Structures are given as C-alpha cells and as structure tokens.
C-alpha cells in the first residue's frame, strides 16, 4: 500500500513520556497512521507500546511532543477529547462499568464522544452494526455477567458506535481463543477497508505479519523501525524487537554457560501431567501443560506475560485449583492439596510480587519469617506455639548471611528496598533447604547487581541439589541460568529447548503461536 499520496489521520511527532521516577516509557517517537491501513505496533513487554497508544487516546499526557489529527495539532486533556476527535482505544483489559448494562455503557461513551445517543437510538445503531459487522453482544446484559470475549466486543462496539476514524487495539488477542482471534483479525481488516486507521498492538510476530500493512517495532521506549508487510523478514523483525546486540549477547552467555552445566539428578522433584487451569475470566489459561523437573536442574519457563504462566505458577504453589491434570512433588501427588502440603514437603516459593504475596506489609521480618516457614518442618512452631526467640534468630541469620541491608529483624518489611526485600525472601526460602524451589520473575524490578545476586543464589541452590522451576519474562535471565527452557504460549507448552539454546527459536516460539 502506498501512503505517499495520502494524508495521515493521526500523526505523533517526537512523543516522549517520562514517568515520575525518571522511567522513560517513550523516547522521541514519530509515527503516522494513514486511512485504510492497519499498523501493527510490535514489541516486547515494557517496550512502551501501551504508553504510546494511551497518549494517542488521551489517557496519558506526553512529557513532550505533538499530536496531529488530520493535520490539526491537538492537545488531549482526557480520553473524551480524543474520542471527540474520532480516536477510540480498545484497551487490553476492557474498561467498562460493571454495574451498567452494555447499552448503558455505550450510551455513556456516545455522550462522552459528543454523539448524544439516547437508549433508543443507541439500540438502533447497535442493530445496524450487528447487520454490518456481525458483532453482537446482548445490550441489556450487565457487564459483570459477560465473558472476557464479550467485554472486548462491547469495547469494539464503543468504537463503532462513536464511528471512530482511528481505532487503537491494545493486545486485543491476549485472552481470546484461536477462533475468536480469527474473527477479530477479519473485523480489523473490515474496519481498515472502510477507511479507518487501525493501530494493532501485539507482541506476537505471527499476528503482526498476518494482520498488518505496516509494522512498527518498538524496543525499550524507542521506535526502532517501521517496515511494510511485504518487506518484512522474521529474523530482521526479531532483531528489531530484541536487539541484534542482545541476541548476540544472549548467544555468548549460552556458550559461556555450556561448561557450567550441573550434574542433574535422576530424581524427579516435580512432575506436571496434562494440567488444565482456568483463568480469572473462566477461560482456560493453562491448556494441557506437562513437564518434569529433576533435582539440581533449573527449568526455565519462558513466555510473554499473559500466556498462562501466572496461572500455571499459582497452580503449582497450590493457591489455584486445576480443572484437570496431575501435579506431583517429590513423589507425592499434590494435585488437590493446598499450599500447606507443599510447605510440609519442603517446597520453597518465591512469588512475583514481593510485598503482599511474599511478604506481609506492615509486619516485621521476624513475623514474615514465621509466615514463610509456617507449614515447613523447619518452622519455629511447636504444638501451635510460636517460639519468637528462635524466629528472631532465624531472621537475623538470614539478614546476616544474605547481607540484607536493614536495621534489624524487627524492621517493617515495607521499609526494605526491592533488592533487600528479595534477598530476604530468597534467604527465607533457602532456609527451608527445599527439594523444589518455585520462582516467578524473581529479579523483576531489580537493578543489574541485585538481579545478579539473586541469580547466583538460585544457581548455588541448584548446585546443592534443589530442582528449580523459574518462570520469567526475562529471556536473558532464563538463558543465563536454565539447563532447559520450555516456552509457554496461549497456555500451552509449545517448545522445549536444551542447552545450547537457540535464541532465535525460543524468541520465535514466544511470539509465534
């Protein structure tokens, strides 16, 4: 498609967004969206894609830069301003009012967009939309009663009802089944064919290649390249997404680690067989996952966020019930057992969120030591009585051996920095001398040095003989420490890699499903 003779519908000029705290989410991005085209915005998690479309939709104000709609410079003070200029955002997680019906939500939005539809007129428009696009959601259904897919349809209805000329879809396929994805992609094409400009955010290369006319690749807040679909090559796009240097560096790490491989034990410490788990919206987030993990082995679970890893992890640690399948830890079937049984079996757990999931805010490190060891055989608890003296000693030992920077064991867990918090959590879990350690994104949000220290601890623990399941969105980390990597996509384990890892293949499995 040649855009040279067309005028852009939406132009972003030198958009920079710096969040409080100095995080640069977007850096000097200029991008045009033309009528009748689908522009895929491709990038890893955290590349800055959502920030960019949120700026275009008036949800966030840019720190610097200019927005032009049909050549006219605009300033959006709220999403209402953007809607009135014909820009509709379909967010990753639908933003509808749960206690309103679909119709009430739509009427509200139409009013915000300056269309002033009443209930009757909105209903009539919905019927027209249904005829034209085959898109139907029961207008009198309350939003809380809708499935995720239906909520998303309602969001699309919003865009159609206000007759948006620019439609921004943020990761619209994350929670959809393959059939729903097909329908959505053809609807997207239909919208573009009508002359609308469509921005389709995705981290899936396959989707970008399937749906887009042009592909804009973002990495670490910057726009790296804009290529037309017909000129796009998979290896080139992967390089744009992850960075040539990074792919090269990862390959180097793999080579270096080859000589460091541990002697993996024969004992299976974790066996997962055909595991099916439902997600928060009732859909299957984990679909028939199976894996085995042996002592002294580090198994990395790679995948882009939202592909079932969280539900998988929550099921393994015993706080989410599987619909089907089997989990056995150190030879004991724990499928229907709670986390307490995992504790008794000596399983160490390092959850993703440090405060609120791994540590109780507002409580001391001594208290958090007792909680962490609550069901472990090493707990300072006898006949239900807590021995606070021993608990304090354990906390002090953890602080000392892991060099946690804190005034003392009575310090409030909240007062620690992220790195110190994580060191304390890891120390507490290692105190259990676990046969199996389950960790999810253990270094997220940590600086390079703190993250390295955590990785070293994990490696040392594997050398001691623990089997470690490491769920991480950080591919560098997985490549660095894992003996084996499985890739999760749409709830399935779609790829398994052994050392030496082929990074391209892993990255491809993460993005192509």
């Amino acid at each position, binding site marked *: 498609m040649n855009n040279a003779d067309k005028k852009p519908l939406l132009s972003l000029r030198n958009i920079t967004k710096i969040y409080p705290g100095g995080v640069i989410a977007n850096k000097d991005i200029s991008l045009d969206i033309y009528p009748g085209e689908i522009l895929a915005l491709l990038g890893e998690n955290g590349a800055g894609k959502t920030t960019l479309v949120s700026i275009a939709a008036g949800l966030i104000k840019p720190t610097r830069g200019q927005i032009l709609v049909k050549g006219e410079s605009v300033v959006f003070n709220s999403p209402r301003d953007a809607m009135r200029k014909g820009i509709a955002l379909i967010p990753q997680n639908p933003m509808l009012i749960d206690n309103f019906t679909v119709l009430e939500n739509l009427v509200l939005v139409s009013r915000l967009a300056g269309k002033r539809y009443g209930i009757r007129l909105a209903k009539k428009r919905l019927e027209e939309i249904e005829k034209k696009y085959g898109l139907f959601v029961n207008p009198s259904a309350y939003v809380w009663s809708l499935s995720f897919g239906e909520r998303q349809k309602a969001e699309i209805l919003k865009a159609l009802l206000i007759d948006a000329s620019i439609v921004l879809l943020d990761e619209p396929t994350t929670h959809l089944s393959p059939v729903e994805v097909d329908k959505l992609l053809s609807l997207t094409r239909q919208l573009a064919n009508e002359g609308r400009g469509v921005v389709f955010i995705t981290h899936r290369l396959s989707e970008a290649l399937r749906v887009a006319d042009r592909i804009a690749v973002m990495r670490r807040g910057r726009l790296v390249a804009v290529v037309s679909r017909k000129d796009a090559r998979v290896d080139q796009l992967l390089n744009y997404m992850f960075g040539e240097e990074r792919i090269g560096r990862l390959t180097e790490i793999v080579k270096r680690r080859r000589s460091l491989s541990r002697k993996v034990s024969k004992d299976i410490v974790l066996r997962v067989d055909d595991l099916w788990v439902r997600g928060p919206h009732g859909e299957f987030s984990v679909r028939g996952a199976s894996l085995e993990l042996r002592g002294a082995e580090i198994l990395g679970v790679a995948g882009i966020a939202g592909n079932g890893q969280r539900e998988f992890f929550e099921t393994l*640690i*015993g*706080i989410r019930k599987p619909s089907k399948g089997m989990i056995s830890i150190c030879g004991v079937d724990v499928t229907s057992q*709670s*986390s*307490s049984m*995992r*504790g*008794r079996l000596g399983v160490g*757990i390092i*959850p993703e*969120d440090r*405060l*609120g*999931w*791994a*540590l*109780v*805010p*507002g*409580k*001391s490190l001594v*208290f958090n030591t*007792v*909680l*962490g*060891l*609550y*069901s*472990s055989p090493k*707990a300072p*608890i006898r006949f*239900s*009585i*807590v021995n*606070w003296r021993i608990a304090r000693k354990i906390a002090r030992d953890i602080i000392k051996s892991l060099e946690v920077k804190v005034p003392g064991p*009575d*310090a*409030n867990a909240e007062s620690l920095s992220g790195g110190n918090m994580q060191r304390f959590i890891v120390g507490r879990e290692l105190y259990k001398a676990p046969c199996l350690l389950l960790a999810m994104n253990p270094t997220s949000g940590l600086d390079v040095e703190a993250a390295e220290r955590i990785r070293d601890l994990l490696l040392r623990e594997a050398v001691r003989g623990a089997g470690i399941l490491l769920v991480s969105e950080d591919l560098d980390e997985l490549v660095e420490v894992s003996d084996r990597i499985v890739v999760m996509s749409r709830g399935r384990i779609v790829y398994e890699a052994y050392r030496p890892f082929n990074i391209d293949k892993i990255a491809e499995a993460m993005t192509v499903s």
Partner: protein
Amino acid sequence: MDTRLRGLVYGAIGLVLGLLFSVLVSVVLGAFTSLGALGFSKIFLSSLLSKDTWVSALPYFVPIAASASSLALAYRAGFITIGAEGQVMLGAVAAYWLLYYVIGHGGVVAITAAILVAGFMGALYGGLVGGLRVGLGVNEILSSLMLNYIAIGIVNYLVAGPWQQGGYTRTAPLPANMSIGLSIAVLVVVLVGLFLELFIVFTKYGVAIDSVRLARKAAQTYGVGVASTIIIVALLQGFVAGIGGGVLLLQLLRQLRSVGLGGWGYGYMGILAAWLGGLRPLGALAASLLIAVLYSMRSTLQLYGVSDSFVLALEAIIVLSVLAFTTLSMRRGEK
C-alpha cells in the same frame, strides 16, 4: 525508635488528645443544657471521677468487654462480624436453660458448666456466620446482623412462651445460689481477654490471623488455611461473646426479659470498643471500661436534668474523638 514502641507512643498521644478534644466539645455542648457550660462541666467531671460511677460501670463492662475482645480477634482476621449482640443473648439463654431447667441448683460446677454452655452456644452462632462466609461466600456483616434479629426473636419467644413466668414477658429470676458476684464476673472476662491476647501473640494462629487480613495471598501461598482460620476465629469469637452473655445473666440480669429490636446493645458497643482498643483484646478491655463508664454516667447526669439522648450523643463524640485522634496519631507515627 523501635517500630512497636513508636506505635505505642503515638497511640497514647492520640488517646490523650482525643480525650482532651472530647472534653472541650462536651464543655461547649454543655452550654446548651439547663446547667450551662460551667455547671455541666463540673457535674460531668465529678461524675467521671466518682468511684460510684466506676463501680456501677463494671456490670456493663462485663458483656461489653467480652464482646469487644472477641470482636478484636475477628476484626484482626478481617472477619467483620457484628454478631456479638446475638451471641451474648443466646449465651445468656443457654446458661439460663442449663441452670434453671436442667441442673436446677447452684454451685461452682453448675455455674462453670452454665458459663461454658453459654460459650458453646455463642460459638455455634459465631460458627454459623463463619460457615456461611466460607462455604457460601455470604457477607458476615449481613448474616450476623440477621442472626442478631433471630436471637432477639428467640429471647422474645421464650419469655413470652415456654419460659414465661408470672404473667409478664419474662422468665423467673434465678435463685441467689445460681448467680455470681461482680468481682468473679469481671475476673472471668479479664482472663478471657488475656487468653485471647496470648492466643494472638504466641500461637501460630496469631500469625495466620494477621496474614489473612493484611496479605491474604501471602497467607495462602505459605500454607495458612484462609477458610480454616476464619472458622477458628468465628468459633472463638462466638465462644467468648457467649461467655459474656452467660456471665451477664449470672451476675446482672438473673432473668430474661423481652427485648426490643436494638437488642441489649452490649454487642454493638463491643464493636466500638474493639476498634477503639486497636484490635488488641487487652486494648479492647480498656476501651470497654471507658465505654461502660460513659454508659453508667448516663443515670447520674440524668439526675441533674441532662437528657438521655444528649448524654448518648456525648458518648458518641467522646468515642469518635478518641478513635479519630488515635488513628491520625498512629498514621503520623508510621510516616
């Protein structure tokens, strides 16, 4: 400063400030009474400082303190029941039934058994609220409120029906040998409050309770049974409130009478005392004493022509001021 010490200091500062503020408001409001600001303050203070007020407060302290310390335990677990009122009532009913209709005589064993049965009755009632919450996800505020009304209905049915005596809607009074003295009643309630405090501080359930409230996901992850913790808390809360009802019957009431829709009110006052006491059973005991003293001052002030509703409003102001200042002060301490 150590975080716990800092919390205590700021809590104490808040308490003093709250009391000072409420005294100030009382004096201002006193100007609107027939006594005038000065006259009212004089009577208010002399009544507050009189020994009689404190002694006559103790019978009220017993059921309020039992309710408050039990509710402090429940609220610590994020289990916001308001069912102490019904549990106090049914505790009294159970104690009356056992002593009057089953055992028929007094003595240490009989009275101990009556207090225990009162506790079990309360536990049953509390357990029902916990079970509904855990099993069916029923909001405990609603279910416990409804159960309070059912308890009122049960008392009114009994005093007007099968247990009615002498043509009035009330039961026969318990004979003197089936009662206990004020000091015993206070001792029982204080010991129970102390037990709850130790239960929270020294048993693993204390850790479970705090984690369930503050970080449920962390509790679940590390092996705390959220449902079982709520059930244990609900049973224990009901047990202690039920004991309060049993002791109340044996010491103050001695007989059951028909009740209005507001109930006896001790369980509801316990809610305030529980928050006022910082969700610590021992703190709740102290707060209960303050509330009981304010409650007993009502009759003294009424003698001087201050209306009952005026005194009630004043009590609420005092309690709210203390609560507000303590919370504000503690928050400041956390910064």
